[in-house]
């Protein structure tokens, strides 16, 4: 069965998008990315000669041959987003942009109002926008109405690992926006969280800290790959209906007679 993830017309087999930050070493990052079977890896831009990153990092990413998804992490205004997005497009040679526009520094919550403005302006400039947003249904609807073919609501604030704080919200977004590519981004902590997101109907999950921060990031990358696939298969298979009372799974017809005498 062909079951592909579609992002702005491009098809992918893996439904796990992986970040490239926070790993103990570049070697570990490289091995974890490969172990995850991800086909899309997130990257960013920072001032040259800053401590992190550098030529070695970028060469490792390029050598994987994977699709890169640059982000606008750290931006607090629409203008910052527009500038950084254009810089990303030039350096990474892609129209894709993971739109991040922080509204609150305490929980790194996206600014829902400015996000709409930024998305509209990026789309007008030819970007293929993947907006990181909260799990507010109406914000997601507005982003889709602007032309975002992908919506990326959070499970929980970035880096918390709390898992899906509001399953109802994500389920509502899935039901109300059935044709949008829905990627749950941020806040996942363990593979069962990814599995739950996929069971709720997400098309994919994007995560970084949960893998990079594990004791064994490479093994955790494999675990997330398995969980993401399991959740997807569960969603496609269609789960049983939940019941309020017990129902025996073993047939009751033909029970031996001694059962009656023991009561």
């Amino acid at each position, binding site marked *: 069965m062909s079951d592909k993830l579609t992002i702005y017309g491009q098809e992918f087999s893996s439904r796990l998008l992986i*970040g*490239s*930050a*926070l*790993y103990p070493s570049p070697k570990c*990052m490289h091995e974890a990315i490969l172990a995850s079977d991800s086909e899309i890896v*997130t*990257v*960013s*831009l*920072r*001032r*040259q*000669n*800053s401590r*992190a*990153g*550098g*030529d070695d*990092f*970028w060469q490792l*990413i390029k050598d994987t041959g994977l699709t890169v998804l*640059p*982000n606008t*992490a750290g931006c607090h205004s629409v*203008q*910052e987003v*527009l*500038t*950084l997005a*254009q*810089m*990303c497009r*030039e*350096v*990474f040679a892609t129209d894709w942009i993971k739109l991040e526009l922080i509204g609150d520094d305490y929980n790194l919550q996206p600014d829902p109002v400015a996000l709409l403005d930024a998305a509209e302006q990026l789309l007008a400039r030819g970007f293929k926008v993947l907006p990181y947003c909260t799990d507010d249904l109406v914000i997601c609807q507005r982003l889709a109405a602007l032309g975002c073919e992908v919506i990326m609501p959070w499970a929980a604030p*970035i880096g918390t690992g709390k898992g899906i704080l509001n399953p109802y919200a994500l389920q509502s977004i899935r039901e109300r926006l059935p044709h949008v590519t829905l990627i749950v981004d941020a806040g996942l902590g363990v593979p069962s969280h990814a599995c739950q997101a996929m069971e709720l109907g997400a098309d994919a999950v994007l995560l*970084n*800290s949960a893998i990079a921060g594990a004791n064994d990031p490479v093994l955790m990358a494999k675990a997330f790959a398995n969980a993401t696939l399991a959740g997807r298969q569960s969603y496609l298979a269609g789960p049983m209906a939940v019941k309020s009372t017990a129902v025996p799974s073993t047939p009751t017809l033909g029970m031996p007679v001694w059962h009656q005498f023991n009561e």
Partner: protein
Amino acid sequence: MQIFINDSAFEVPEKASAEQALVTFGAKPPFALAVNGQFVAQGQYQHLALQDGDRLDILSPIQGG
């Protein structure tokens, strides 16, 4: 005149181009440039005359989540 590249001060000739500033800084590809918070495309480096006090940001790939 004095300009700032990635928050460090540099002396460059009057009306120096963005390209001259990049050479002064020793920028290594791949990178992208912004001047006073506005993106400057590669094709404009030669033609953009800088002014005293301009602030340049030279950004390169880094890990991201």
